[in-house]
């Protein structure tokens, strides 16, 4: 409760400072729009514009990209656990691909898969998969030996061992990989949408931002930014925090 009071106080102080700058008249409203202009623009885009459908479009894409990355990451991690040569190859691939910015791959992506949803998904996949694998591999490598010995002791093997012992043991790493993956996916999506535009339907939140910049609708631009921030914070403090409370906090496995 105390934390929320502090946050609310800080946000109010920020808004007040913002509004004071606006009232000072030093900057043009095109650079520093007032809070009520931002609010009105956001309301109008949500109610009368396409912001909501664009947001749904973006969230659908990011969830698809995230799920695809997790499925691939899990598959790769499981094969890598079984075959040492495959693991070495993946480690090499991670060290090459992980530092590579998604934007650097854009020309290649356009050549390979064009400029549609598939291109955005490709960029999300690239942004999520490698950090997810690093985190998940790390967790699998650090599984406590004692739990492995207990599993050996009770002759637990194969898929049942994987599901009952290895995956729950690696869950904190899986979750932190998921959190990193989400934030990278969200960032990658917005960048990719700004570049690829509305290649199908009305486009996403990235395209919304791009349009606002082109038409110099700064209040709308800040409105879009606000939506992006709110979604990021909501995912972090509601979804992931809830998931953590239900799992690693409950199990005493917080790191």
């Amino acid at each position: 409760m105390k934390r929320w009071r502090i946050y609310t106080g800080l946000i109010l102080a920020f808004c007040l400072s913002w509004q004071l700058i606006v009232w000072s008249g030093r900057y043009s409203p095109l650079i520093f729009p007032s809070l009520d202009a931002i609010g009105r623009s956001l309301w109008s885009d949500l109610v009368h514009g396409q912001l909501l459908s664009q947001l749904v479009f973006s969230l659908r894409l990011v969830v698809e990209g995230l799920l695809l990355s997790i499925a691939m990451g899990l598959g790769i991690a499981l094969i890598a656990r079984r075959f040492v040569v495959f693991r070495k190859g993946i480690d090499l691939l991670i060290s090459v691909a992980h530092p590579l910015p998604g934007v650097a791959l854009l020309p290649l992506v356009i050549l390979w898969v064009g400029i549609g949803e598939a291109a955005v998904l490709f960029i999300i996949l690239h942004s999520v998969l490698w950090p997810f694998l690093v985190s998940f591999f790390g967790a699998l490598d650090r599984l406590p030996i004692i739990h492995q010995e207990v599993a050996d002791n009770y002759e637990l093997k194969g898929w049942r061992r994987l599901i009952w012992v290895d995956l729950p043991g690696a869950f904190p790493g899986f979750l932190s990989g998921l959190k990193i993956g989400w934030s990278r996916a969200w960032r990658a999506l917005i960048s990719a949408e700004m570049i690829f535009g509305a290649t199908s339907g009305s486009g996403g939140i990235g395209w919304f931002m791009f349009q606002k910049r082109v038409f110099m609708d700064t209040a709308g631009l800040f409105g879009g930014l606000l939506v992006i921030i709110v979604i990021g914070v909501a995912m972090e403090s509601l979804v992931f925090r809830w998931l953590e409370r239900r799992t690693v906090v409950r199990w005493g496995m917080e790191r």
Partner: protein
Amino acid sequence: MSGYRFEAVSKCFEGETIFKNFHLSGQSESFLCVVGKSGVGKSTFLRMLGGFEPVDSGTIHIEENLVQKPQKICPMVFQSYEQLFPWLPIWENVAFPLRVNGEKKEIRKAKAMQALQAVGLKDHANKFPHQLSGGMKQRAALARAWIAEPKILLMDEPFGGLDMMTRESLQGLLVDLWKERKWTVVFITHDLREAARLSTKLLIVKEEGEWALLENHLPWPRDPYSKELNDWVRQIQL
């Protein structure tokens, strides 16, 4: 009959000879305590019997079966408090061997509650391991080993890190369970008084592969502070 047999077992560990042409027979329902100074190979002895550590030469049999890998008939209670799975509530940790055997949930839960009752943890069945004290975790680990219906129960300094009171209460509990369930137990400890209280036989592991075996004929029930037990402890030389 759940005896075990070491035949001409030799084992080196990091260049040091721990066992050299070692022979030992353990009878069913016996309680062997293994004592010795740190680093002489007490845990290696237990890990070899449990199939966690291979022998360099010789053989180990449990009943007539050659030990080659860990087996559920010889559950191990480890020294570490971390041996329980943190993501499972206590009752599911205890019922884990039954889950591996494919038992239904109702049966698993009923048997786990029975085992938890015996170790005094029934009221903590739905807690997670991190919510329990060290002594309670070791009790739960003991209940898990019990539920596996062990032929031989292996215990690697399970009460090593506990305070004196908890330790003595767990020793009493273990003796009661051992007598009631007619287990064969191999128990590692560095505490001679603990060994004297629990064992029917005492294996003293010395340096460079030397060892000695003593019978413990102290009468039951054993008081860890009795003169008789203390006199017996005093005559032992590690």
